[in-house]
C-alpha cells in the first residue's frame, strides 16, 4: 500500500532570489506550500517564514 503523502503547510518567501522553481525565482511575499522537512531547511536559511 502506498504511503500517505506528508501534509503541506503554507509559508511566505522572505529572501529575494533565494528560492527558485526551475529557472524562475519565486518573488518575495509569495506563498509556498512545503512539507515540514522541506520547510525546516528553508527556515534555517532564512528564506521563508511562517505565514
Amino acid at each position, binding site marked *: 500500500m502506498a504511503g500517505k503523502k506528508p501534509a503541506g503547510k503554507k509559508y511566505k518567501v522572505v*529572501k529575494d*532570489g*533565494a*528560492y*527558485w*522553481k*526551475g*529557472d524562475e*525565482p519565486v518573488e518575495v511575499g509569495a506563498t509556498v506550500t512545503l512539507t515540514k522537512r*522541506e520547510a*525546516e*531547511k*528553508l527556515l*534555517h*536559511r532564512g*528564506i521563508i517564514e511562517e505565514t
Partner: protein
Amino acid sequence: MAFTHGSTTSGVYYHTQDLTAYADTWSVDLTGNADEVTTFASAGNSREFIRGINTGGGTVSGYYDAAADQALFDSISDSTVDAFTLIPDAQAIGARTYGGAGLDTSFSPSGSVGGVNAWSLDVQGTGFGGGVLLNIETALTTTGGNASVDSLASSANGGIAVFHFITDDVTTMTCAIQDSPNDSTWANLDEQTFTTVDSVATIVTGTIDQYLRFNVTVFTGTSAVVLASFIRFA
C-alpha cells in the same frame, strides 16, 4: 575500475589564481583525528578512541613564473582565508574536487644553476574536504542555471560552498550554489556578488539536499570565469 593518471589533473586553483599552467605536482592531506578516551574500565587490553576534529590541507608545486609568483607572494602575507580547489580528473559538472577554505602557510620559490626555477605552496584548510564541481572554467556571458548534480542522497551536516572568480569583464555578477530535494525547486545554499576577481569559501550548516547546481542570477557585463564547487561534510 577507472584509474586516472596524474596528467589528467585539470585544475589547480588558489584564491584568484589558476595555477594549472604553472603546477606539476599536488597532494591533499585529510586527517580524521582519533582522541583517546581509555579508562580503567576499558574492556580488554585495548585503548579506546573517539572521533575528534578533522583537519585538512594541500600542497601544490610547479615551475616559477613571475606573474604567478607575485600573486602567491602577496597572498602569503595577508590574513585572508581564501578558496582552494584541486580537480584530479577532467573538468566536467559533477567531477570530483578537493579543497575548501584555506590559509597559505608556506610559499617557497627555489632555484639552482642546474635546473628550472620552482615554487611550492602549502595551504592549511579551515574547512576542507572532497566535493563536486558545479561550474567549470569557461567564460560565462549571461544568467542561467547549470545542469544539476545528483548526489544520490541528502546529507545532514552542512558543507562548504567554494567560488573562484578568476577573470572578469563584468560590472556585477551574482551567482549561487543551490540545492534541491527533487531537481525542481531550488534554494540558495550560498550566494555571492562579484564586481572584481576574488574567491570565497563559505561554510553552511544543516541539511543539504540531494541535488546541487550553480546558478547565475545577475550578470551585467561582457564575460566572467568562475569555478564553483560544493563540499558536503559527512
